[in-house]
């Protein structure tokens, strides 16, 4: 119980901290918005030529752009390097001198920041986008609900993946390079660029074997109504499966890493 209270408190501090970065938040929002406009303009040009591009109608295409741009910051699509930085500066020592679990501590921190990003960079972006473009919102409360559950699961899968990437810093001084490669994969295979089902069949089948679509593609397809009714169930189960698998893996790797970690500095 007390543990729960601790991590909720960490989350609260993280929210407060994130809110202090007002300028960064607004700059981020502007960037996401700008690239959203760019992606929308490209799509609109394509739709002039044909009514259905990649199996999506114009409205669906624009909806996809709006939601994916809105979720960049919530899901840290471009990756995070915080934990590896604490390893390289040695400030991880201060965290380890406290009675807390590194995995849940960073999860609470990240989630707090994500919530702020969701509201300020996500909701605002979709709202403004809907003024200019025909963004299609989920039709029913049920669809919203399932979409949000899926989004949370996706967040969890994504967090565990990012945490694992950061943990490589325990073994190599070049974890940043690993991070860049890993996050490029995350961006390509998560369906951030376009929904997985629109890629060539062999490609989406292959990618479906990885955890990446569970981070972004699944909630996105639910929000867009591409995935509905009974099809949702196996998609959610896959997400839960990856969540459990990656969480367990992250915890095992963390335990291993801590036993050989060398705290720098002093």
């Amino acid at each position, binding site marked *: 119980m*007390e543990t729960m*209270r*601790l991590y909720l*408190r*960490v989350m609260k*501090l993280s929210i*407060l*901290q994130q809110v*202090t*970065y007002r300028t960064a938040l607004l700059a981020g929002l502007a960037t996401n918005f700008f690239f959203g406009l760019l992606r929308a303009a490209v799509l609109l040009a394509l739709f002039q030529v044909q009514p259905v591009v990649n199996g999506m109608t114009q409205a669906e295409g624009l909806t996809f752009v709006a939601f994916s741009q809105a979720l960049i910051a919530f899901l840290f699509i471009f990756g995070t390097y915080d934990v590896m930085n604490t390893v390289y500066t*040695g*400030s991880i*020592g*201060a965290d*380890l*001198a*406290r*009675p*807390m*679990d590194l995995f849940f501590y960073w999860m609470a921190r990240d989630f707090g920041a994500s919530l702020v990003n969701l509201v300020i960079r996500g909701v605002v972006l979709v709202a403004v986008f809907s003024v200019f473009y025909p963004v299609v919102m989920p039709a029913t409360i049920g669809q919203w609900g399932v979409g949000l559950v899926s989004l949370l699961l996706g967040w969890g899968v994504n967090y565990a993946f990012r945490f694992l990437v950061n943990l490589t810093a325990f073994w190599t*001084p070049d974890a940043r390079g690993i991070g860049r490669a890993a996050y490029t994969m995350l961006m390509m295979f998560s369906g951030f660029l376009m929904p997985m089902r629109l890629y060539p069949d062999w490609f989406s089948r292959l990618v479906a074997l990885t955890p990446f679509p569970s981070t972004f593609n699944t909630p996105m397809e639910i929000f867009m109504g591409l995935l509905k009714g009974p099809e949702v169930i196996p998609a959610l189960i896959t997400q839960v499966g990856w969540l459990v698998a990656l969480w367990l893996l992250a915890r095992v790797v963390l335990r291993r890493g*801590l*036993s*050989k*970690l*060398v*705290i720098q*500095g*002093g």
Partner: protein
Amino acid sequence: MTAIISVRDLRKTFRVLVRRPGLGGSIANLFAPHYRSVQAVEGVSFSLQAGELVGYLGPNGAGKSTTIKVLTGLLVPTGGEVRVDGQVPWEKRERYVKGIGVVFGNRPTLWWDLPVIDSLELLQPMYDIPAERFRYNLVEFKRMLELDEFINTPVRSLSLGQRMRADLCAALLHEPKLLFLDEPTIGLDVVAKEQIRRFVLDINHRRGVTVLLTTHDLTDVERLCERVMILDHGKLLYDGTLAALNGRFESAWTLKVDFEEEYPDVSVAGLPAPQRVGRQALYLFNHRELNTAELVQQLMARFQVVDLEVRRPPLEETIRRIYAEQLLTK
């Protein structure tokens, strides 16, 4: 009495990647990494009784921080046995660190962008501190460390001395039995240093907290520690009272004497000729061979003396000689 900290034959060896220069070197590093080992701590043994306040000294690179990291559960040693308060620090880290406090002088532990109080309040659920104890301790530490003036300021805008006071508070709110301080006064001005020393003394005396402290500031040592341990190149060279260390290694003391008149010859048998300025003379003497009282008596018997002053060399000087001339390894 049983020891609260016992360390036996502690060893820590680091493997350091030797980077070869140039492009060819980089490729070689990748495929055939070449490691060199650094023996940071080589067979150190000591123990501390509950309630002691011990200085852990040694020149740069001696292995002090490495030892502290092992004792605080942050580093798994290469060999040796460590028991702190009945536990092995690195085995059940989370449980172990609940009972200790740690301050690394060169490393902030509080949330950088948030007011100090936010970080402090996080500690209550973290250590499961009863709300009342927490309030009580916070009030007391705020008073002793004068935190009120900046408790609502973001940590990022604090001065070094303010941050160190906040860090000390954060290390003690959960009432640990043991406190590890790695250079707590580094970079602070004399006033801030003194405030920190008074605080450390106080929690050691009144709360009975056992303290192990590393520092390069020998005033810290003189003010705080009865017992010191001296480490060099990973080996423990001295473990004993500060008084005994001074007794063994202090260089010559100085006796300054003001005479009534300018006597032609004021030299003392067995001592080098004193330095003289007018009616004043400075005698250098080895206090191990000639005690001060004898010397004074001799002088008083022969001359009219107006004023006397004995000066001991500063600890700084003694320690410098120990390091530089490697007095302890001989």
